[in-house]
């Protein structure tokens, strides 16, 4: 910060100057849009929308089945297409893949009775059928991210004929590993009461995730901005990330209660006792190739929760990839951007 050691009064002035400067630049960057790739809505039911991303010009289409991305309910999916140089989707398009994305939308109180079965079998199932019909294909490549990965595992176990290859990213499988703080906090919640109280406010979710490492995420991150003079691009990137972090949609009461109870409190996924629409989710039925990507420093979904997958699925073609970053870093960090999209694209192409 200061180049004049010992001059604390000067340093104080400099702190003030840098604070004002950073605040001004962040304010100016406040109009930065999120989501950079062109897409069109191809299907919609209630608040759920299926988007197809338009192919990039001058890119030859890869000989591969279409890719469907299923993101989590707890955050907005535009993190996967944040800006041109931080976009998993754009890089998949650049590899010639056809990319679709399920956007769960922003539920309100009229959606409070939507259940997990609705999300996975009704909405996700309809999206898969739409993509398959559009391409005249029998199966697609499914990429599940975080909670969306858990949904993808459930869907794939119930409908294996529709999934050619499965990619899971930072996806919890064993919800009760010793280092899983979210799981410990959720263990004693009365989900029946919480369900009756209505949808969970999005701000509460944001607070929950920040509370996992509050000093780092609520204090140090911002003070670190003053270490050097921010340039406009950096300020825009920071603002986009911040907007995404604080942009959690409200969570549907019924589905959230089921998710917390079945997965976090009862760890049903690995015990084969999740039941959707009267059918049991048996991970052994997943026999297609699986690529399981996780972040080594993930504080939300610890690596142990992710790597458990290999023990429960029936696939013989299982690849595991660890990336030296955090949970959100896996979507947008420079390290991940330079590695993960290319890995996914080549893994899919090799199994076309």
């Amino acid at each position, binding site marked *: 910060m*200061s180049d004049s050691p010992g*001059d604390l009064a000067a340093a104080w002035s400099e702190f003030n100057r840098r*604070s004002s400067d950073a605040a001004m630049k962040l304010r100016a960057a*406040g109009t930065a849009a999120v989501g950079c790739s062109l897409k069109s809505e191809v299907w919609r039911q209630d608040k759920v929308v299926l988007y197809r991303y338009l192919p990039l010009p001058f890119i030859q289409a890869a000989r591969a089945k279409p890719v469907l991305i299923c993101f989590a309910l707890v955050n*907005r999916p535009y993190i996967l297409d944040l800006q041109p140089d931080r976009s998993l989707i754009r890089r998949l398009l650049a590899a010639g893949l056809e990319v679709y994305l399920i956007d769960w939308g922003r539920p309100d109180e009229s959606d409070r009775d939507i259940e997990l079965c609705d999300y996975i079998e009704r909405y996700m199932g309809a999206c898969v059928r739409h993509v398959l019909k559009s391409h005249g294909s029998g199966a697609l490549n499914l990429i599940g991210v975080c909670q969306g990965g858990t949904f993808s595992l459930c869907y794939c176990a119930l409908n294996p004929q529709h999934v050619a290859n499965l990619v899971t990213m930072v996806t919890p499988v064993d919800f009760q590993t010793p280092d899983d703080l979210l799981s410990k906090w959720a263990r004693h919640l009365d989900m029946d009461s919480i369900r009756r109280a209505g949808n969970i406010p999005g701000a509460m979710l944001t607070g929950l995730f920040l509370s996992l490492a509050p000093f780092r995420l*609520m204090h140090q991150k911002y003070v670190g901005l003053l270490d050097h003079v921010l340039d406009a691009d950096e300020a825009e990137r920071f603002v986009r990330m911040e907007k995404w972090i*604080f942009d959690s949609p409200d969570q549907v009461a019924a589905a959230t209660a089921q998710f917390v109870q079945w997965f976090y409190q009862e760890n049903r996924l690995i015990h084969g006792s999740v039941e959707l629409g009267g059918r049991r989710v048996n991970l052994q039925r997943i026999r297609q190739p699986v690529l399981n990507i996780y972040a080594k420093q993930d504080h939300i979904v610890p690596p142990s929760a992710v790597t458990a997958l290999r023990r429960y699925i029936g696939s013989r073609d299982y690849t595991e990839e660890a990336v030296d970053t955090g949970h959100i870093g896996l979507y947008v960090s420079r390290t991940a951007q330079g590695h993960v999209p290319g890995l996914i694209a080549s893994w899919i192409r090799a199994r076309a």
Partner: protein
Amino acid sequence: MESAGSQGQSGPEQAAFRAALERFGQLLRAILIEFPSSAGALIKDESVGQRLAVEFERWLREAASMPPWWQNLQMAQAFVQPPSQSGQPFNLGTALKMQAAPAPLAQNDFIQAYQRVSGLMARWSQLQAQLATHWSAIARTAGERFIARATSSSTALDLPTIRKLYDSWIECAEQAYAATVHTDDFCRTQAELVNVTTSLLLEQRRQVESFAPMFGVVTRSEVDALRREMKRMQTEPRPASGRRASKGSRRKVKAR
């Protein structure tokens, strides 16, 4: 392209940014006041460390520095922080008693509701006190770890040094925090606090619901029942259309 939440306006992320810088500014000010003659001089790390530990502990103990994640459930705060001057828990029934004639609820119901709320509030306060004990432990452990890290060497007290000390304290605080929040006792206390807060919220709603019909307002239960009925109609298989049904009945008539 999508516009995210509070674009161009002052959102929660900007508030978080301001709060963090304000904290750091307070820290700097405290050092400036404590060691006014230290500009350019060498100060023992240990003494700065101790002073900062006090400052950090004060910061940690202030509830505002660490809003709990379940803060948003405190829509039930009408009970928890009674708006009335009397200090009695807020009770919509009592508040409306003057206007309501005749009273829509039996006296017995009022008493039961009051007892439920009082019991929940008492438990809520107990749990808050238990959680405060955990926070004290976090603050104390973070301070101890931080002081233990400070060496006895001397250093120039400039901004980069303070910044390093700040990072070091953040690390200590996160370690102390992690050690506490993973414990079974903390998890149970926090979960029960959420459960009690939720119960207060539900109790509040129950009371509001009991008065809604008086004002001709649709209740939450009625809306929920309507929504469930609509969902049932959407998901249940539709009966044969009227046209077909009538054709069928015509055929049956002819056959007779």
